[in-house]
């Protein structure tokens, strides 16, 4: 905390922004710059992840085709332009890892959370700006290491380890267990460990900031739902990442120090018995299931880390464009917390086929299904918010409604997979792939698209193009359903995940047209994202000027200029008088009331808080 130059000695004190380029844009202490850095990291990482998914779809749909470009780029992994199964598996692994960690965890929380949590609670920065900077740069190093795993996997034929993003032992624990499992796997574990540290620093900062730095009058129950979501997400990260970190340390020791935490005795690899030679030292008595427990104790909260910020943003945006208060604010808060809390007790549903006792499976099953209750509370409250509203169908609103649709479509199959009896036939099929992509992947990303279109004017002072945004929405929305709905059918038929090709399986031959259809939909959807990237870059320079409050919204980020000054509120600490979603209040002159608007009859704020908005017409 030595470098913390931003101390408040009084409300009159103004923070001067740093002037050097490096302090301003690279090693910045400003939460807004750090938020944008996280978003840029996610925007880069998602390109890598999407490219990998396109390569996978190409291999699945057109097996045996020579892709000259693949042969040129990956002479080891795709000799003569045809992918090897190992190369495909490494794509699966790296696609999952990069998407889950460096996209779904960075953008919603590190990106938008960093930028808007302090502003929405009326703080001038995070509690620990130096830690905040460190958390981004640590995460960035983690990203560099995962990219290193692509290029230096130790095997010509892969772009990283081949064990999937879950890194199950003993495959992940033995360097000689397959191509890419040597240096590639080491780098993978190190990257994840670094990422854990970065996320923990971030979570610590979020929680402290929210508990400690709220503006006068900003009681917990006056916070926007976004803040509740970011807070719960931070708590989940704080309590789940240390478990992964601990497990990762043990896994790395199994690989490098000859311990046997996760490696059972008597393993044969390539006809060689454990202990037979120096490069396959003896291992005894380890428990592969132990790794699964440690991993999924982290892994399940992680899926909520990905989606909770999207839920927060959706609630916020639905209310703003429905011009109605969020239906059941308190219930929404408790539902967020219930989902977060229950998320810690359901990890076993990822392990129904690990040989666990049927009684444990039933317990995990019941707990899992009970998450349906708070999820349904949220869904009905979103619908209640929209009910009877005169909706303004802007692009962020479209994406927020899309989020609700995808959350329901993806969540409903969770009720299928959460039952141990139904999971037995469904596990490791495309049904699972479809389920988690819809609910944790695409729904979260829709939440972030909504957030981007919604907050872009605040971040850059200009609107994004509505026309491009709408085209982007409709192609993406139809596209993702075209990709993932057929996958349910494939899964029910019995098509297994993680297979590079299905040409050898007679019973899957009839599904081939569907596989091709999914691939075409996927490629089209990926290309539609060019519109989004173009819109982002174009609007920064050419977008229509937005003003402080273009959406006529009520929360604190809209009382300050766009983009906000270095200390968010130009040296003034706002005072909050009311809840976050006061739309269509009977008797009010406008259909929205800013949080800083004093109640009639109360003593007016001394500092002119709330003067940033111009919709006040008496």
């Amino acid at each position: 905390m030595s470098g913390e130059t931003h101390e408040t000695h009084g409300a009159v004190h103004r923070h001067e922004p740093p002037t050097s380029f490096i302090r301003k844009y690279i090693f910045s202490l400003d939460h807004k710059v750090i938020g944008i850095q996280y978003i840029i990291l996610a925007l880069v990482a998602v390109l890598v992840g999407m490219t990998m998914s396109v390569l996978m779809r190409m291999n699945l749909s057109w097996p045996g085709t020579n892709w000259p470009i693949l042969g040129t780029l990956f002479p080891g992994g795709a000799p003569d332009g045809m992918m090897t199964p190992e190369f495909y598996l490494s794509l699966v692994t790296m696609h999952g890892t990069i998407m889950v960690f460096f996209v779904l965890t960075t953008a919603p929380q590190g990106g938008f959370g960093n930028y808007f949590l302090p502003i929405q609670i009326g703080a001038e920065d995070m509690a620990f700006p130096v830690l905040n900077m460190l958390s981004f740069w640590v995460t960035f190093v983690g990203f560099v290491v995962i990219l290193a795993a692509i290029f230096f996997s130790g095997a010509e034929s892969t772009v990283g380890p081949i064990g999937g993003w879950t890194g199950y032992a003993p495959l992940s624990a033995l360097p000689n267990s397959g191509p890419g499992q040597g240096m590639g796997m080491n780098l993978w574990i190190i990257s994840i460990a670094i990422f854990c540290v970065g996320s923990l620093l971030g979570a610590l900062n979020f929680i402290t900031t929210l508990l400690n730095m709220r503006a006068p009058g900003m009681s917990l129950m006056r916070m926007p739902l976004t803040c509740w979501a970011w807070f719960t997400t931070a708590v989940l990260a704080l309590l789940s990442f240390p478990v992964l970190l601990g497990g990762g340390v043990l896994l790395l020791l199994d690989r490098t120090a000859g311990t046997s935490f996760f490696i059972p005795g008597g393993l044969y690899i390539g006809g060689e018995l454990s202990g037979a030679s120096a490069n396959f030292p003896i291992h005894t008595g380890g428990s592969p299931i132990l790794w699964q427990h440690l991993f999924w104790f982290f892994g399940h909260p992680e899926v909520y880390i990905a989606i909770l910020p999207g839920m927060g943003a959706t609630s916020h945006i639905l209310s703003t464009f429905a011009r109605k208060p969020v239906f059941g604010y308190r219930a929404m808060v408790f539902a967020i917390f219930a989902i977060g809390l229950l998320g810690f007790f359901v990890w076993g549903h990822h392990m129904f086929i690990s040989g666990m006792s049927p009684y444990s499976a039933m317990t995990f099953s019941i707990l899992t299904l009970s998450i349906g209750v708070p999820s349904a509370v949220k869904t009905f409250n979103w619908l209640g918010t929209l009910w009877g509203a005169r909706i303004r169908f802007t692009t962020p609103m479209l994406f927020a409604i899309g989020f609700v649709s995808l959350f329901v479509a993806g969540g409903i199959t969770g009720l299928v997979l959460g039952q141990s009896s139904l999971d037995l036939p469904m596990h490791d099929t495309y049904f699972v792939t479809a389920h988690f992509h819809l609910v944790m992947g695409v729904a979260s990303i829709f939440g972030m698209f909504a957030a981007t279109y919604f907050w872009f004017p605040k971040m850059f002072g200009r609107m994004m193009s509505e026309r491009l945004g709408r085209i982007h929405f409709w192609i993406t929305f139809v596209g993702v359903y075209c990709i993932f709905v057929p996958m349910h059918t494939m899964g029910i038929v019995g098509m297994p995940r993680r297979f590079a090709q299905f040409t050898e399986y007679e019973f899957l031959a009839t599904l081939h047209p569907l596989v091709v259809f999914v691939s075409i939909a996927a490629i089209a959807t990926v290309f539609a994202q060019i519109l989004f990237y173009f819109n982002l870059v174009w609007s920064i320079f050419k977008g229509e000027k937005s003003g402080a409050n273009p959406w006529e919204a009520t929360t604190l980020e809209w009382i300050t200029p766009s983009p906000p000054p270095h200390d968010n509120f130009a040296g003034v600490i706002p005072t909050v008088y009311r809840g976050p979603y006061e739309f269509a209040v009977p008797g009010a002159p406008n259909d929205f009331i800013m949080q800083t608007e004093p109640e009639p009859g109360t003593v007016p704020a001394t500092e002119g808080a709330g003067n940033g908005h111009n919709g006040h017409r008496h």
Partner: protein
Amino acid sequence: MVAVVEKARVIQTAKSSANRYRIGMWVALASILMMFTALTSAYIVRAGSSSDWQPLNVPRVLWLSTALIIIGSGTLETARRKLKRESPTAYRRWLLISAALGFAFLLSQLFAWRQLVQQGIYVSSNPHSSFFYVLTATHGVHLVGGLIALLFISLRTRSGGDSEFAIAKGQAAADAVTFYWHFLDLLWIYLFVLLFFWRS
């Protein structure tokens, strides 16, 4: 009226600003606790899952470690109280004593490692020795962090300034580091018991 509100707000901001160190420390402790909970559950599962578990004998020097860290907790608590009674020189002296005790604890732990190595017991020898090295190393890394924090706040007492805000902040930092140190103390006692006095 305006001046009163303004003054109240300034004090509020200063207090709140200082309090963040305490809150941040409690939050960090929750996180560290989760990591050791994970390692403990791994320990219990691994101990029960196979027959290759060979318990180590207690290295005698660990009793010395335990004594050192408990005394260190006491001296640091004294330091914190000295600061509350506004005697910064005594505060600094007790901080340095605590840091020396923390350093001695680390040396003692290293000595225990050396003794085991001399007996031919390495991290890969058997699951109990693996966990012994992992748990002591993880605890030690956190203690190194605590040492750095101790030295940091003892250097800061010199250039603290004497505004109300600086005092509040110095006190909060001292509190936070002391909590952390007590936590590591209790954590070590817990690990000691888990490693050598708990049998599956």
